[in-house]
């Protein structure tokens, strides 16, 4: 088997204020997999995500992306390979127009002209937002902004797409449309969420991160059927569901 797209070994991290958020995380994600990263608030999910492209530097352990270790010399290449979509699209969309925002990443990679335009067009088409290219991000609805946020990362053609709580703050219809969009993307996916139904719909494999370690790793359905396991890690299916 080829090198996993994502290879995390013994990753530990403490914030400068001394708060230790990760205590030795091991996780491998292979090409084409869709993995849900489940965990209650404060479990360290976002902290883990920030290690995947070198924003945070591991205190111990290592992260590699398709064989390339995440370290200060190769951040740009790592950031091309790992596309992170943050939780709040207002943090992700900072340019005056949707088009400029989607172009920001590939432009940082050195693309210009027709090649850049093509990237922007295809990323916007992939999320169904082509006709909004010239609008200002703050004139879009929340759901539209989340789509554009995904496009900004798709435009970099990452090897793995990482979504941090993509279904938070969405109404049911927008949430369903987003699920359809994610389903339609042909990428390796790591999706952080505590929306268990969303995870079941989109990911065949799930990992529970709890108190800074991987507490379970297996088929999503099997994990969601284990009520004890979920209960121990402060995860709950919506009322009325029974695994």
């Amino acid at each position: 088997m080829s090198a996993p797209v994502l290879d995390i070994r013994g990753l530990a991290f403490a914030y400068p204020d001394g708060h230790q958020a990760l205590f030795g995380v091991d996780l491998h994600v292979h090409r084409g997999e869709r993995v849900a990263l489940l965990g209650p608030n404060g479990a360290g999910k976002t902290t883990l995500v920030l290690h995947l492209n070198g924003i945070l530097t591991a205190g111990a352990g290592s992260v590699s992306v398709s064989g390339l270790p995440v370290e200060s010399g190769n951040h740009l290449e790592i950031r091309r390979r790992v596309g992170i979509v943050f939780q709040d699209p207002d943090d992700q969309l900072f340019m005056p127009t949707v088009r400029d925002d989607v172009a920001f990443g590939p432009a940082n990679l050195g693309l210009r002209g027709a090649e850049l335009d093509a990237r922007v067009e295809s990323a916007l088409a992939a999320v169904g937002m082509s006709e909004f290219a010239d609008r200002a991000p703050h004139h879009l609805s929340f759901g539209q902004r989340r789509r554009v946020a995904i496009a900004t990362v798709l435009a970099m053609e990452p090897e793995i797409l990482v979504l941090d709580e993509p279904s938070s703050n969405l109404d049911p219809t927008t949430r369903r449309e987003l699920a359809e969009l994610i389903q339609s993307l042909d990428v390796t996916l790591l999706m952080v969420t505590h929306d268990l139904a969303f995870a079941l719909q989109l990911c065949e494999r799930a990992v529970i991160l709890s108190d800074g370690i991987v507490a379970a790793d297996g088929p999503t359905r099997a994990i969601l059927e284990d009520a004890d396991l979920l209960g121990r890690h402060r995860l709950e299916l919506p009322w009325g569901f029974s695994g």
Partner: protein
Amino acid sequence: MGGQLGDHLHVEGDSPVHRLPAHVKLIGLVVFVLLVVALPRDAHLARAATLAVAVIVVALTRVPVRHVLSRLVVETPFVVFAVVLPFVATGPRTTIGPVTVSRPGLEAGLALLVTATTSVLMAVAFATTTSSRDLVRALQHLHVPDRLVQILAFMVRYLGVVGSQAQRMKVARESRGFAPRSVRSWPVIATSAGALFIRSYERGERVHLAMMSRGYTGRMPVTDPLRATPTQWGHGLLPGALALVTLVAVVVS
């Protein structure tokens, strides 16, 4: 959450002024205003001529008159000053109807009013025909320091976000029975302002993380450089050239 900086000023359109590249317009505006301000105080005819030039440019933008008028409010302080001047200034007196005013004061007031109106009209012609995006590109093109350009761009983008956050905090305060009536309510307002500042600061940090995650290394990429033909430069600098001609005429005569 309406009322965005920039959006408020810009009016979509397809006039000759709209079509000029933003950096050309910006240079044209600065040159024109500097020359207008440089006119000697008693050059009334020349000053009227520059006002006419500004009015023509505004007419060329085809922006509705009421938009232009509503944007002239920034001129109010000058108007007040111009009205006060004839009364407070010294020198020979002159009589207009029932009042006697200072003659140099009256002239200075009029000159100030016309200069301010001319400059503001030209600035409005620029602002209504230039999107905030193009303004940012123009500043970038003119090598204004990257930091300043980014501050401006982020202000345009996040003013609404911060504004609506402030609004939500106000609603939250008032929903819990807070009414800002006396000095005693000031600490509450100060605390809210502090909280707003911290939230904005944290937002800034998160935006920075998101930028770095997409390969940002400290310089905004220029993806779409502005370009102007000599003809466009000619058009953009025409008002400035006319102002220069009047200035030279005044100085020579």
